[in-house]
Structure formats: C-alpha cells, structure tokens
C-alpha cells in the first residue's frame, strides 16, 4: 500500500483537504488560548479613581490598581527641589523629574521594584525616597534607581487629574 502512495502524485484534493484542515484546526484552537486572556470584567476594572483630598504634604498612600500597588506621594518642596537638582549623567536610567511628575507636587508610581518585583519601603534608603529590602535597591525622591540591582526607574502608569481631589489611574 505504501508503494502505491509513493508513486501517486500529490492530488489537488488531498492538498486542499490538508490545507483547509490545518486552517480549521488553527481557527478552532484560538478560542482555547484566548479564553485565558483577561476577560471582560477584568478589563473593565483597568482604571481606578482615587480620592487624594486627605493626603498631606510628605505623606504617601498606596492603592490597588490592576492588582498592583501604586504609590501616590504628595511631595514636600524639599523633595521636589532635590529631585530636580539631580544630574542626569548620574542616573542608571536617565529621566527628568518633570517627565515623571507633570504636577511636581504629586508623584504617582507603580510600587513594584523593577529588579524582581518586591514592594519597596517609603522614606527609607540613602536617597530620601524608597528602599527595596529584598536586594538593596535605592530609589530617589522621583522614584529613580540610584543604587542597587534594579535596572530601571519605578514605572509611571497612565494617570490624570479628574479634578483637584481625584486622580484616575489607567
């Protein structure tokens, strides 16, 4: 039987069947994979509104956004000045403070260390900002990495001021 198969030409019918079959299998497999993607109810929660009216200068709150902690810090004049004075050449990941905090009084950052994902502690570390206890990364008052193994600065999420008392993240 296999000899017959070898000597037979590849007929159109067989090729067409195989091709269409492969297309069908691929199309059928996609829903099985896509179902693991974030579902509609999760995607609907992709933005969070936060009331910041009670946050005092120098104080920081942590909110949950998309399952992750977000630091919202109301910086003092001193912290802002310090952040702006840093020479970009000293930074592992050069970023201007103005680009990270459009409204300099408010710093909004994802509170996950860019090294391996621990939550850094506020008001700690050698640069007046945050310190990650897991492997010793130090972040400054703009959330930029200054010392330690973290490769990049703390992430700034998409956010906007809905009004003077409310920030919408995401």
């Amino acid at each position, binding site marked *: *039987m296999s000899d017959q*198969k070898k000597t037979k030409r590849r007929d159109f019918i067989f090729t067409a069947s195989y091709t269409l079959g492969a297309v069908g299998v691929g199309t059928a497999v996609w*829903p*099985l994979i*896509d*179902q*693991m*993607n974030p*579902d*509609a*109810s*999760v995607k609907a929660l992709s933005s969070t509104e936060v009331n910041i009216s009670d946050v005092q200068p120098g104080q920081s709150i942590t909110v949950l956004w998309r399952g992750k902690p977000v630091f919202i810090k109301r910086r003092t004049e001193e912290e802002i000045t310090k952040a702006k004075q840093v020479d970009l050449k000293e930074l592992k990941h050069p970023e201007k403070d103005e680009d990270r905090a459009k409204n300099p009084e408010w710093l909004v950052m994802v509170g996950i260390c860019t090294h391996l994902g621990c939550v850094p502690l506020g008001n700690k570390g050698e640069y007046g900002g945050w310190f990650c206890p897991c492997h010793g990364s130090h972040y400054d008052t703009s959330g930029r990495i200054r010392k330690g193994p973290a490769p990049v600065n703390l992430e700034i999420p998409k956010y906007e001021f809905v009004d003077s008392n409310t920030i919408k993240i995401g």
Partner: protein
Amino acid sequence: MSDQNYTPKSKLGKWFNDRLPLLTLRAHLTDYPTPKNLNYWWTFGAILTFFLIAQIITGIILAMHYIAHADLAFESVEHIMRNVNYGWLIRYFHANGSSMFFLAVYIHIFRSLYYGSHKSPREVIWVIGMIIYFLMMCTAFMGYVLPWGQMSFWAATVITNLFSAVPLVGESITNWLWGGFAVGSPTLTRFYSLHYLFPFLIFGLVILHIWALHIPGNNNPIGIDVKQPSKDTVPFHPYIVLKDLFALLVFLLLFAFFVFYSPNLLGHPDNYIEANPLVTPNHIVPEWYLLPFYAILRSIPNKLLGVIAMFASIFVLVILPWLDTSKVRSAIFRPLYKQFFWFLVADVIILGYMGAMPAEGIYLLVARVATGYYFVHFLIIFPILGYKEKTLDIPLSITDPILGDSTNQSLAKEQINKK
C-alpha cells in the same frame, strides 16, 4: 501484521524505539488490518474518541473559570458565559458535547448488538465498554450538578436519596455521600473533584478497550471472521482514517447546529433558575440520555426494588455476551433476532419518553410494560433465540461469496458493496 517487522528509518528513531517502542505502536495502528466491508455504523468509535478528548479539553478550560461553591457556582457559570473570551462557546460546546457523546455511544452500542460484536471472542471488549458507559453516566450526572441550577440541585437530591433505600445503613451512606444532611456545598465540591477525575479513568479504559479490540480485530457487517487479511482487509491508514474523518465531520455538522443555533434545546429551562432547597420544580427530570433508566427506576412502586431494578438494567447489559447463545453473530443472518432488535430500540425510546413524563396514569403503565419487556428481551428472548432460531446461510468469507446457491451469492455481494 507487518508491524512485527517494523524498523524505524532514522538512527535516532531506532535508538528511541529500542527503549520505548512507540514507533512500532504507531506502525501497528497505521497498518492495522481492518475488514474492508465495514459500514458507517463502525465510525462511531472514532467519533467517541474525538468527543472524549474534546470534552476533556473544554472541561479543563471551564475549570479555569468555574467556582465550585454553592454560593458562587451559578454566578461563575454566568461569568463564563458573559465575560470570559469565547466562554459562551466553550460552555455550550461542553454541555451539548455531552449529549453528542451519549448519542454516539448509543449508536455504537446498538451497532454492536445488531452485528454481534458483543459475542465471542469480543466479550471483554463489551464488558470494558459497559464499564466505560457506566462511568460516563456517573460523570454526566455529576457534571449536570455543577451549574447549581434547580435541576442540578434536585436531580442530585433525588438520585443521592436513592441510597437511603439500602436497609440499615442507607441513611448513613446518604449523609456520607452528601457530606451533610442534604445536598449542599460539600456535595458540590466532591462532585466537581470526581467529575474531573472520571474522564481520565474513562480514557484509560478506552485504551484497554481498543487494545482488547486489536487482538481479535474488528467484527464486520456479515459477522464472519477474516479469512485472508490480504484480500479481506485494508490498512487502517488511510482507508479507515479517512472514512472515520468523513463521518466525524458529518456528525460535527449536527453538533454545530446545536451549539450555534439551539444550544439550550436539549437542556431544561429550570436549570437557569438558581438552586433553591425550599422550592421543588414541578417535574424533576434528568438529561435525555438518562431517561430510560429513570423510567425503569420509577416504574417499581417500592423504593429499594426500584433502585435494584435500575442497577439490574445496567448489569443485565454487562452479562449480555453470555445471555446471547447464538452461534451466528450478525443480525443480517438472524431474521428473528433482527425483528426483536427493533423491538428493543422501540422499547428504549418508549422508556425514554416515559422518563420525561410524570410517573402516573397511562405513563406509569406504559413504563412498567416497557420495563418488563426490557428484562424479558435480554433474560428470556436472547437465550431462547440462540437455540431456537433458524439462521440464514452465511457466506464463506468477506471477499469470496459462498459457492453454490445464487441467493447467498447475491447476499454476500450486497454486504461487500455496502460501504
């Protein structure tokens, strides 16, 4: 059987095959000699294998989103239907897939009965098949409880309550099954666990089922043994693979109709009402494929005897190969057996209808007659037919018709040309 002489083409293949002969297995399955006169009733084994795997895959995916707790189960199913990407598709596939699975298994079983595939030397294949069937029914029953609708809850209550019919220890057994004093969340979580487990037991049994089949080889429509493999059989690949694929595609068309255009036709509206222990539905009915057994259960006025009758109706199927005493396999050559076969088909359909009706009045009477006939058919008619029936002459082989009498020659030709 050419697989005994199979050698892999590549060195790596040979190295691996010497240690785990998977390539030999593949060659065996590809070359497996299959009678060339099999008709389309033989394609349901492949259809069943497809549906078992499809149900397992869609089931595992549903399990990623479903929550097995009485307070959250119904809601989690709605979450799958509304929020999960393609969740509605996977859920409707799985729910209607179980109906298709049972439709295929009933055709498969009745095909075996008609052509004598349950008879020697295939008794063990039949018994394994019956175990698979029983596990399928348990799996389907537990699966139906999971959405935690009214039917889920009350069908679970009715069926688990049956165990209280056991003398002395009945109530203890029932409370043990429930994990409480009534069907509740503990019942749901253990049913979920077992519903996930059983299909893998079924999968293992299917492998044994096919292995046991490959020893004597397939039966065929005229029920006589293969005489010359080179003339009577074809290699499984590509002949039977293509035939099975074609049949599967046609079956999938029917399936697509249900999933996409009538996904709730085979279900019960009451299961879209959340389970309420304080309100019993007007009519508690199981899914259609369990209706005949439900009818048998309710036809006996005594609770314990009803349970015994229901289990007996399954057990009588298990011992079937020993009840059928005929030396001739295929119903084609057994005119009386053939008639009674159709009586059985009608009987099972009638039992199914009666299972969906209230157990009173004319319905109860018909159910009782049909139950009686069911047992008479297997326990009395089967053995008697084997001894008393005058069978028709059988052909000599699948390809060579019987020499002599022309009516048998044309009969033999007729069977061979029917594909």
